């Protein structure tokens, strides 16, 4: 019984983990290339969630189609924020970029609140479910998982098989080295920032395919926290590391939930969060470079 429940929850965790991973890739990409921590990360996820909600509820557009639209919107938003704000701060002390991304997050929250109000909203996309015997998976969750995996693979191919991707990798490794090879480092910064924001906004759509309720301007906060834990799990500067970090996080979250639920008189969900951050602390203590990071020289 418990074993079955655990197996079922772990399957759910793996599916959710893929989406978590995808939702962290943008954070890792921006950190890897620009060495900027996007503290406003969750707000960009929230923007994606609103794009999914509005497209579905007003135009009846399928969330799967909303993913590329949200990605394009995020690319534009990223370019706008890069050239208006971030570009000036690249060489400034870290505090400046932290404050800037924090304020951009607040700005987005307040603009969305002004336009759409602050009540909790949701949408209902019924596309059936499949029964695995030990657990029931809605098709929407499977689509979200498959979409996340596909995007991770595409990003991997882009990074490793294209000329622009190799330029980006060289900037991650050593921006001065990239410069002497003739890479336009400024353009690489702009591209990776907007790509990171595009991925993050798109991940907001995927997350609503998983949890289509509770959409409101302030929903991003706990995703920022989760993304930090996942990014550290995955080695911080690597988008694919982040993807696998997401899988691990999804498994840990759901696995620990199942175990905590066995303890009488305990509210398992609250403990799950405690457990996640305990994991973060332990990892930072034993492997400050991240659990899944390659051996860096």
């Amino acid at each position, binding site marked *: 019984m418990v074993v079955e429940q655990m197996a079922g929850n772990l399957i759910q965790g793996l599916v959710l983990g893929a989406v978590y991973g995808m939702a962290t890739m943008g954070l890792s990409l921006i950190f890897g290339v620009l060495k900027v921590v996007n503290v406003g990360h969750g707000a960009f996820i929230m923007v994606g969630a609103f794009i999914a909600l509005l497209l579905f509820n007003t135009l009846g557009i399928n969330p799967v189609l909303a993913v590329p639209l949200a990605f394009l919107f995020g690319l534009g938003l990223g370019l706008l924020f890069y050239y208006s704000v971030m570009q000036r701060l690249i060489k400034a002390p870290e505090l400046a970029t932290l404050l800037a991304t924090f304020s951009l997050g607040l700005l987005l929250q307040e603009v969305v609140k002004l336009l759409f109000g602050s009540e909790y909203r949701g949408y209902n996309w019924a596309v059936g479910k499949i029964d695995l015997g030990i657990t029931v998976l809605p098709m929407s969750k499977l689509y979200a998982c498959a979409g996340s995996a596909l995007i991770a693979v595409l990003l991997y191919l882009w990074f490793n098989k294209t*000329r622009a991707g*190799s*330029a980006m*990798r*060289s900037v991650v*490794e*050593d921006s*001065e*080295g*990239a*410069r*002497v*090879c*003739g*890479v*336009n*480092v*400024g353009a690489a910064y702009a591209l990776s920032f907007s790509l990171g924001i595009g991925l993050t906004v798109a991940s907001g759509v995927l997350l609503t395919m998983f949890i289509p309720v509770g959409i409101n301007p302030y929903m991003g906060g706990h995703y920022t926290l989760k993304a930090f834990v996942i990014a550290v799990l995955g080695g911080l500067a690597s988008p694919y590391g982040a993807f696998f970090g997401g899988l691990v996080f999804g498994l840990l979250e759901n696995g620990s939930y199942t175990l905590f639920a066995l303890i009488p008189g305990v509210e398992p969900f609250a403990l799950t969060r405690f457990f996640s951050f305990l994991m973060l602390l332990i990892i930072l203590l034993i492997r400050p470079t991240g659990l899944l990071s*390659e051996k*860096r*020289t």
Partner: protein
Amino acid sequence: MLNVKRVESGYGSMQVLWQPSIQVKKGSITSLLGPNGVGKSTLLNTIFGSIEPWGGEVYYEEENVTRVPTHKKVEMGIALVPEGKHLFSNMTVYENLSMGAYLKRALAHKEESLELVYTLFPRLKERTQQLAGSMSGGEQQMVTIARALMTRPRLIMLDEPSQGLAPKLVREVFETIQKMKEEIGLTILLIEQNAEASLEAADFVYVMHEGIIKAQGTPDQIKGSAEIREAFLGI
């Protein structure tokens, strides 16, 4: 080939360069001497464009390139071997060299460049699949120079290429620089703290101190002046 006129630059509000002017003749080795912290690296980085010039002008083959962005300068044939190597440590030697052939003009001649680089550094040919970060200091310096050659430069600027190397390797680096001039026909601007070796290799020498050019001449003229040697070079 390179004509630097009264450039000024620095970091933040601290001015480092106080209008030094230098000229590098086509096909020559020009050496910039002087102790640490007098602005030699700043001058190279200002010529290359990694540091934005505050004033003055830089001409490359008669063209004003003072404010041309670095990636365009690389395309025009200016290469920099930066101090501290700046290799891509988690990439293989081959991937590092390939990054040198990143721009279109270099990419079109990648195979020729590889052949040239492997002739110059046969050891790299045996190590194409090794991660650059796992190599010895001397080998890493070879990769850095080789990567710069992959950009197919006509002018190559080297910032302390022998720094931290054992005497035998220092000799190898200087032999390579000679070969780059004689066999490939490159023009070379060299920064060195190793004054004796550079005086040996150079065709023309500038002595820099506190952001200005204190002396200039042929190596024999510089060696001949006890005053310059004692005051600025310590030899």
